[in-house]
């Protein structure tokens, strides 16, 4: 952090004062490298994608006739080619998000509280929990596909040893495939949320706890009235990023279940990427991505409102 030789009053200065001279040329010179990239790979594609979604655009056919909103209409018309596949992929993403997000908040929260205790070696444990995240989704997917293999994997073997069923089709059939997908995701990324929540916990002033204790608050009350409120900004951040990450899930389905059985665990991203890039149905796939965006936007706004009003 910045050096604090300066007086507290000076530390509250913010960006350039209003009324300061405008330095357009310099500013845009500084911004130019970023803006070029941003324009080319964020702004232009955002519009381009929308344009594509308004055409029957197959990458392997040279003619792209304009069809207006037909792609979108197809997506909400039962019986069209894309309707059932798209919505079942949305359903898959929905199921995964609904089950993974709460666990990806609660488990890391408990772990963060645990790590926040005055115990020895918490830095070591913190590192261990975080470690799976640096491995990358493909390593995780490949490892767990093997460990959860119904016939060859060690998970079923161990379950059998303790008397539980040992043929559970972890990667082959639902609902166990969901358990696998959510479980593996937690194993992989819980550490990330743990670390962030832990930092949030450390940022809560200990005096608040003292004050609450003096007021006669027990463990649980302290948790609800000091810890959680103190964590609110961090929680908003973690919840938002976790929801987005789950809604954009691709690698786990792709590697663990290949979207199976059939297409039941095929996430929305898997379907869109396959339709748009492998099958060449770019128009329809673009429309799907905008529809997904709309749904996510609504959810993000709702989530933000709910969290902000909690006080």
């Amino acid at each position: 952090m910045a050096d604090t030789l300066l007086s507290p009053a000076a530390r509250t200065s913010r960006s350039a004062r209003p009324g300061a001279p405008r330095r357009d040329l310099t500013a845009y010179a500084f911004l130019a490298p970023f803006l070029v990239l941003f324009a080319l790979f964020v702004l232009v594609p955002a519009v381009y994608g929308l344009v594509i979604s308004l055409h029957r655009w197959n990458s392997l056919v040279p003619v792209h006739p304009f069809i207006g909103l037909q792609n979108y209409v197809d997506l909400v018309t039962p019986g069209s080619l894309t309707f059932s596949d798209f919505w079942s992929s949305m359903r898959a993403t929905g199921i995964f998000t609904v089950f993974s997000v709460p666990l990806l908040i609660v488990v890391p929260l408990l772990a963060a509280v645990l790590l926040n205790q005055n115990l020895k070696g918490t830095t070591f444990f913190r590192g261990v929990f975080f470690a799976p995240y640096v491995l990358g989704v493909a390593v995780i997917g490949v490892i767990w596909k093997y460990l959860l293999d119904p016939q060859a994997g060690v998970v079923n073997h161990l379950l059998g040893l303790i008397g539980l069923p040992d043929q559970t089709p972890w990667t082959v059939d639902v609902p166990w495939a969901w358990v696998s997908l959510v479980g593996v995701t937690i194993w992989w990324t819980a550490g990330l949320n743990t670390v962030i929540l832990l930092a949030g916990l450390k940022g809560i002033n200990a005096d608040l706890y003292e004050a609450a204790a003096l007021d006669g608050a027990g463990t649980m009350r302290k948790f609800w009235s000091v810890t959680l409120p103190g964590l609110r900004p961090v929680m908003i951040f973690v919840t938002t990023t976790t929801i987005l990450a789950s809604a954009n899930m691709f690698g786990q389905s792709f590697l663990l279940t290949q979207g199976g059985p059939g297409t039941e665990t095929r996430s929305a991203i898997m379907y869109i990427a396959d339709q748009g890039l492998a099958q060449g149905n770019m128009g329809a796939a673009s429309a799907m991505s905008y529809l997904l965006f709309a749904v996510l936007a609504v959810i993000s706004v709702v989530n933000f409102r709910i969290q902000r009003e909690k006080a």
Partner: protein
Amino acid sequence: MNRSLVTRAVAVATVVGLGVSLAGCSSGASSTSGSVSGADYTGPKVTVDFWNGWTGGAAPTIVPELVKQFNAEHDNIVVKSVPMEWADISAKMPLAIKAGKGPDVAVAHGDDVATYAAQGLLLDSGDIVDGLGYSADDFPEGLFEGNQYQGTQYGIPWSVTPLGLYVNNDVLKAAGVDTTVPTDAESYEKSLAALKAAGVQGEWVDGYVFTGTFEFQSLLWQFGGDLYDEDVTEATFNSDAGVQALQHMVDQIDKGYSPENVPQDGNFNALVKGENAYNWNGVWQTTNEALQDVDFSVAPLPQIGTEKAVWSSSTDWIFPSNKGQSADETSAAATFVKWMNDNSAGWAETGELPAANDVREDPALVEEYPNLKPFLDQLPYAHYETVAPGITAANAEITTAVGEAVLGKKTPKEALDDAAAQADKILEQNAQTYGG
């Protein structure tokens, strides 16, 4: 190959020049988009990118050796073999070709050729075929035509890969059942029942492409059905024959001959480990090292239905017409293909059957690779994949249906009807996209 004489060089230059101008006007979804010369390549040194899906079995050893030999014999051509999963190739190659980053030559499965041709991705290979002196009679029936689209030849058959029955003899002996390989529904049922009595689940069925789907298709044909109608405008795999076929597979589970929820490759792994006795799998598994220590034999598929039939695929040479495709590279690629065809006797080592009749029917082949004989015997009644652009998307619905039925989510009839409905929509969309 030998360097050509001066006069031939002139002829070649002319042909190459023609090839350049023809290749230059590749475009659109129409079928004619340049062609490949059938003569030997004699131009400047070029690198030929060769994409193939031979990532399993003995191929990863044999292909590099063949390529090395070819490169040694040709100063002006360097072939670079790029193996990747078949699924990856079909996902990436079309767009790569459009972007000019695709291969100069590739191998593809029969059901992809029409699609690629309709998408304007391939060069006409008619000249090479003439140069090689091939005609339809040189290959198993229907294979040559299967490589054409709207009358133009695009693919050159290289190998055929039918399904067969793998038998783990140790398991049969240990269970004390009759070790004669079953050949029809009755003997198969008897064997499975006997195995079950001895505590062995004889044949594991699954809903995955390389095993379950192909087993279903074989059965469908055995019961007299077909995947699509003649014009490929309607799916017919949900006919009574189809339902019977899928029901047979589901029955295996109901009768206890197969566990539920078999994972991908689970049935093959089980054969290797001695947990089941029979596995319907492709000829390519004959060279899988996992089977080395297993006392196994191969046999034609038992005839469960009313006629003999077996699923087979073909692997075919294709010449992509990349954006900015260099005619030199295509020409060199053609030379490579010719050379491979001339030197293909050793290809059987990979567990694929050479497509060319004379190579395949050479008695020496079976002598050296006795395991291939049962597969060869099936070829007269083998069914190859349907040829129509965009057919693979429709075929994917079949796999979904097989999976759903095998996992008990839908009855065979429901699963097939749903899949056929979806497939019909896909076929309709294909007709719109590719002009039928």
